[in-house]
């Protein structure tokens, strides 16, 4: 029953890791690291922290692998770990006001610690529009609490189920839902100047 939930290659990889072959862990990393780093990026908002959180999550998962019962998917498990790790990292960063990791912005700037994600298909016009939109979105997202931002981005952008978000945030499913709803409501209000007022 449990093996039906797990991909055979992943089950084999875990068995090999537990038998002492640490290189077998690469199979799990190849399959899930990008998704894990993407979720971490949604929570932390910058690439350095996202990769740090993703690596820490994979390291924690590796060390806890002997206790992983395989009655859930590895992907679900690692996602839960990375959400926790990334949220903790954000809270740590918030406490350390002197820390400024590079953030994604419309322009790379050493002074502002920002980097730009390459968009090979964008033309000059769309770049201009994107800059304005990106700037507006960033400002609106910054107004959300860490919990609202995490719950919203994971639910809306990564399609993570509410139950998983709730488990990672250590709150009830209803509280996680409320956080998402509050986030959408705040973001909708942030569009007021653009849309010409709420309807």
């Amino acid at each position, binding site marked *: 029953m449990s093996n039906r939930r797990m991909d055979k290659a992943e089950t084999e990889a875990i068995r090999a890791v*537990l*038998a*002492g072959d*640490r290189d077998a862990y*690469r199979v799990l990393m190849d399959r899930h690291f990008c998704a894990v780093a993407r979720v971490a990026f949604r929570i932390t908002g910058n690439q350095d922290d996202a990769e740090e959180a993703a690596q820490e999550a994979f390291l924690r998962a590796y060390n806890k692998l002997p206790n992983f019962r395989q009655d859930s998917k590895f992907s679900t498990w690692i996602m839960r770990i990375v959400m926790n790790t990334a949220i903790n990292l954000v809270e740590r960063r918030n406490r350390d006001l002197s820390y400024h990791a590079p953030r994604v912005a419309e322009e790379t700037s050493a002074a502002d610690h920002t980097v730009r*994600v390459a968009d090979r298909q964008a033309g000059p016009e769309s770049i201009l529009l994107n800059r304005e939109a990106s700037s507006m979105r960033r400002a609106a997202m910054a107004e959300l609490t860490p919990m609202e931002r995490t719950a919203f981005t994971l639910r809306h952008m990564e399609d993570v189920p*509410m139950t998983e978000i709730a488990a990672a945030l250590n709150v009830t499913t209803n509280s996680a839902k409320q956080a998402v709803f509050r986030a959408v409501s705040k973001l909708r209000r942030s569009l007021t100047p653009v849309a010409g007022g709420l309807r």
Partner: protein
Amino acid sequence: MRHFTEEELIAYQLQESSEGAAIGRHLEDCSECADISESIAETLRVFSADPTPPPDLEINWQRLRGNLSVLTPESRGSWRWAWPAVGLATAALILLTFFGVHAHHGNDPKHNMAVNGHGPITTEPANPAIANHLDAAERLLTEVNNSSGPLDDATREQAHTLLLKNAVYVHDARESGDLASAAVLENFGRVLTTLDNEPPTSHGTWRLRLEMNTSGLLLDIRVLRQNDDLSQGVSQ
């Protein structure tokens, strides 16, 4: 006609509503709610997923691999029977500590504390300035443990200064026969040397933390400091 709240319409747009069918029917007749619902849908479109920078799998794997210990079936199963042994050992340690502390207060002005397996240490304050050194060491290691990006110039400069002083304290500890303190300070020296020589990379402190076990070292330094404080108190 009952209008739906914003929250109910958000749930509907996120497909989290239990009354989706009723809301759908209502929206066909109610332009007011339909407008709000469309505004919510527009918000969700505007805040849809931006592209994220793709991580370099190879680099991340190499970094991770260096920190993976080899798991063995023996080590996995060993804890089940080891717990009673751990319990007994802890009880024995508590008893030893209790009697040790009382014996110490009775007649011996010196006191011993084990530091991460290095054995008992002599806590005579050979050099009063070591308290400041340990204090600075603790602050630096805390900084290293709490940051993942490159350290700022001031911290690196502090590491350089501490490195120069640390050699003196290692020498003093050895001279006074305090080998456990010398061992801890030598480990601290290795961290300082790495900090002093390595170029500031974005993952420098993260790697340092894992490879050189700076958390364990921080604990050692704190124990040393505590011992030093105690011995200062005894001598006063």
